[in-house]
């Protein structure tokens, strides 16, 4: 793997991690507010 390829690899990995992290946070918040709304 060339340094350029590795940089691209890391960049994609980081952006995917950020998106997945954001989705998980959103879902945690959504389940919380659904629980409150249904009480």
């Amino acid at each position: 793997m060339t340094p350029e390829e590795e940089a691209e690899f890391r960049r994609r990995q980081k952006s995917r991690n950020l998106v997945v992290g954001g989705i998980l946070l959103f879902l945690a918040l959504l389940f919380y507010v659904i629980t409150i709304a249904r009480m």
Partner: protein
Amino acid sequence: MSDSTTSVALPADWRDFFALTKPRVMSLVIFTGLCGLLAAPGSIHPVLGFTAILCIALGAGGAAALNQWWEADIDAGMKRTQARPLPAGRLQRTDARDFGVLISVASVLIMGLGVNWLAAAILALSIVYYAVIYTIWLKPRTPQNIVIGGGAGAFPPLIGWVAVTGDITLMPVLLFLIIFMWTPPHFWALALFVKTDYANVGIPMMPVVKGEKSTRRQIFVYAVLLVPIAAAPWFIGGTGYVYGIAALALSLAFLALSLPVAFRQTGETDTMKPEKRLFAFSILYLFALFAALVADRVLANNGWIA
């Protein structure tokens, strides 16, 4: 790792997963689902309403991903679709399949747990309908594929409605039927002026199998059927006159625009103006009709109309 010369496949970009969900189609799904939800009698907590629309969008995205997983080879053979993530090689096929299954299952479970299980069951049915019955089974087998596929696009307002009411009545079924009847003339108008290469990849599209003349006549038949079906919610007392008059005016305009399409023959150099006009109007038609439905409900709720 940086010293190694081994070639490692790059992880797919998250945007390619997003592209699998067909975001443009999703916007129409969200709109009609939201209209079904807003037009339904009764009320829903805003958080649960948001959750219902989110689940409808997720379900549509999951079904779209499964559609692209199954049709990757077909997409590769057509100009319009060969830049999609799978035929372009930016994504593994199994990743697309797993992604589609994951968000489909998640959408149904969240809908069931958060909103109600009847809406979740219809959402599950709509995903199976699009991904299995339409994509895998009927699309490659019959020129009626667009008619059948129209059913998949017709589910969102039904699901939005059921998310509020928790039961199925004639009104949401009529909303389903409106989109069901609208899809064939909408799509076939497009198929007449955009020459796709469906024939080369073995998908039996109506203009290719039955010819232009038959397709034009069928556009007209569906446009005729759309008039009473679009106005039916008013006739059965499900809406007020605001929707009724809008539905009749819009459907008669649709019918009028389908007339020149239905009874003409074209040559090689034809500019296809009537077909383009009908297609453009068909999009406006659906937006305006569902907007009128919501406006009617808002006016009735505020006591401005009976």
